[in-house]
C-alpha cells in the first residue's frame, strides 16, 4: 500500500528561481527509501517542500489517510530552550492527543532506550549535539506515525544511539510505517534501504532498488557508491 506519493514540479526559496524540479516518487508500507545525493543536490529542499516548509512549491503530496500522519526529524535539532526534555514530550503528546497512560509508558521506554532518563528534567541548553538529536528521535518515535521523514539522522549520534535508532526504525517498519531517510552515508544506506531516490542538481537522476541503479549506471556489480558517482 502506498503511504505517500510525492510529485514536485518545482520548488525553491524564491519565486521564479526553483532549487528543485521534476521529482516524483512514492513510499510504501514497511519500506525504507533512501534519499541520496551530493551536498547541495536538493535533498533537504525536497523534504522541506514535502512538508510545506518552503513558500514556493508547485506539485502535490498524496497521503494514504485523511490526515497526514508523519514525524519529521530535521538535520539540525530544533529545541525550545525554555522547556525541559520531558516538557517537550508533554507538548508533543498534547498535540497528538495521546492517551495519558500510553504516553507515559512510551515516553519512559524511549527515554530508557536512548539513555536519557537522568536528564528528563534538564533544559536542552545543557545537552550535547548528540543528546539533542536523540531528543528529536524520541519525539518522532513517540506517537508512532505512518511515515517517518528523517534528514541525516546519523550526524552527532554515538554508536549506541545509532544502534537504538536503527532497531526502533526496524520495529516501526515491521509495524507498517514507511521511512524516507535523507543521507549521504552511502554504505549505511546500501545496507539498510529497500529503494533509493537519487537527486542530482535539483532533479531526479534515478530511482529504484540497488539492482535498478546498477542497471541504469551500467555497473552490474557496482556498489551504491559506484552507481551514485556514475549517475549523479
Amino acid at each position, binding site marked *: 500500500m502506498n503511504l505517500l506519493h510525492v510529485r514536485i514540479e518545482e520548488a525553491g526559496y524564491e519565486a521564479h528561481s526553483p532549487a528543485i524540479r521534476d521529482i516524483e516518487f512514492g513510499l510504501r508500507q514497511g519500506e525504507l527509501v533512501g534519499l541520496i545525493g551530493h551536498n547541495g543536490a536538493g535533498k533537504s529542499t525536497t523534504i522541506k517542500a514535502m512538508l510545506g*516548509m518552503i513558500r514556493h512549491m508547485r506539485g502535490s503530496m498524496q497521503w494514504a489517510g485523511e490526515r*497526514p500522519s508523519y514525524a*519529521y526529524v*530535521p538535520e539540525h535539532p*530544533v*529545541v*525550545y*530552550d*525554555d*522547556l*525541559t*526534555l*520531558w*516538557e*517537550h514530550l*508533554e*507538548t*508533543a*503528546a*498534547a*498535540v497528538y*492527543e495521546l492517551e*495519558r497512560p500510553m504516553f507515559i509508558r512510551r515516553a519512559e521506554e524511549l527515554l530508557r532506550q536512548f539513555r536519557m532518563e537522568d536528564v*528528563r*528534567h*534538564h*533544559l*536542552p*541548553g*545543557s545537552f550535547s549535539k548528540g543528546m539533542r538529536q536523540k531528543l528529536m528521535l524520541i*519525539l518522532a518515535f513517540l506517537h508512532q506515525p505512518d511515515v517517518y521523514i528523517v534528514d541525516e539522522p546519523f550526524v552527532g549520534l554515538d554508536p549506541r544511539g545509532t544502534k537504538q535508532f536503527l532497531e526502533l526504525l526496524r520495529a516501526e517498519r515491521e509495524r507498517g510505517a514507511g521511512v524516507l531517510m535523507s543521507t549521504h552515508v552511502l554504505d549505511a544506506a546500501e545496507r539498510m534501504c529497500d529503494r533509493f531516490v537519487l537527486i542530482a542538481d535539483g532533479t531526479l537522476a534515478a530511482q529504484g532498488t540497488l539492482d535498478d541503479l546498477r542497471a541504469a549506471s551500467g555497473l552490474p556489480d557496482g556498489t551504491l557508491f559506484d552507481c551514485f558517482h556514475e549517475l549523479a
Partner: protein
Amino acid sequence: MAIPVTTPAKLWLHRAGANARFQAGIVRAAVDWTVALYIVIPALVYASIQYIAWWRHPPASFALVPAAALSGLFFLLSLRGSGYRFFVLEPDQLFVRANRRWTRRMLALGLLYSAALQTLAAAGLAGLLLPLLRAMPVSAGLQLRLVGAGWALWLVAGLARYLLQLRLAAGWRLWLAQAGLALASALATIAATLLAVYAPATGYPAALVALAGAWLLFARARLRQQGAFLREAELEQRAKLRLAGLLLNGFAAAPRPQSRRTPLVFRRSQTLFRYRSPISGLSEVLLKSFLRSFTMLRLYAMFTSAAAIAVCAVSFAPVRTAIWLGCAFLLSLWMKAYCKEVAAAPFLALLPWRDRTRIGALRKCTHLLMLPGFLVVSAAFGYAVGGWIGAAVFAAAGFAIAYFIAAVATIWY
C-alpha cells in the same frame, strides 16, 4: 582598501575597523533620516542651547551637588560593565590562537584600546559636566583629583570585572563575585575621595600609584590567561551586540544563552493543567516560557508598577479611568504578541498545530498572563476611588474585564 593582514597589529586594526563599521551600521539602522530630522537633531540643538545657558547662568541647585558625586558617578559607570574589548573571535581557534605571540600582541592592543576609549569617555563626561563643575563651591584642583580618581577606579574595576567574567561561568558564583567587586569598588571610591580631599599631596598620589599597580597586575593576568578562549569569544560577541541590545531593548528579545541545567520554576516539569488537550499543551508552553523569562517578568513588574502609580497619582477621574482601561488593552496586546512570538518558535513549528488550537491557547494565555498585573492595577484604581473597599470591588471587576478584553484581543490571530 583592505589592509593586508600580515601582522597581529594589522589583524587587530582590521577587526577594530570592522567593529566600528558594525556599530555605525546599528546606529544608522536605529536612527534613520526621519528619526534624525525630527528627534535627534532637535534634541541636540536643544541640549546645546541648554548647555550654553547653564554655562552662562548655572542654576543655584548646582551649587548644592556634593563634590564626591563626581567620583560616585564613575563608580556607577563601572557597574554598567567591563568596557574592555579584545576582538577575540571564535574562528581564531583555527590558526591565530596557535601563535602565542600574535595572541598576546592582540590582547595587549585590546587593553590599550579599551583604556584609551574609557579615558576619552571620561574626558567627554567631564566636558559635559563643565557647567556643573563651574558652579560647585570647591577648587578646580579638587574637581580634577576627583575626576582622576573616578577614572582610575573605573579602569581598574572594569578590568577586574572582565577577569571575573572570564574565570567564572555565568551563575550565582559570578553574581556573588561581582557583588563583592562592586562593594570593594564602592569602598575604594570612598577612600580615594577622602584622600583627594584631605591628603592631596601624599595619600592621593599614593592611591593613584596603587591603582596603576593594580591595573598593571590585572593586565598581566589578562595577557597570561589561558584556557578561557571560548569564554573570551562569548564575552566579545556579547560586547559587540551590546549597543544593538540597548537600541532594540523592548522591541526584540535579545538572544540569551541558556546556561542553567534545570529551570528555576517547575523544576520537575510539573504540568499546569490537569486536563490534557492540544490547547492545554500549547498553553503550557506559552505560560512556562513567560514564567521562566526573567526579562519578561521584570518588564511586566515595571509596567504594572508604573500603571498602578499612574492610576493613583492622576486625580482627574476620566483620565484615571482611561489609564486603567488602556492598561488592560495594552497588557492584553502585549501578552498576545509575546504568545504569538513563542508559538512561532522552530520547535513548535515541527508539530502539526491546528488553527483552532493556536487561537484557543492564545486566548487562554493572554487572559491568564494579563490577569495578575491587571488585578494589581485595578486594586490600585479602586483604592484611589474608594479606599480598601474600592480596591476589593475593582479587583473583582478587573478579573471579568481582563477576561472580556483578552477575548476581544484574540478574536484575530
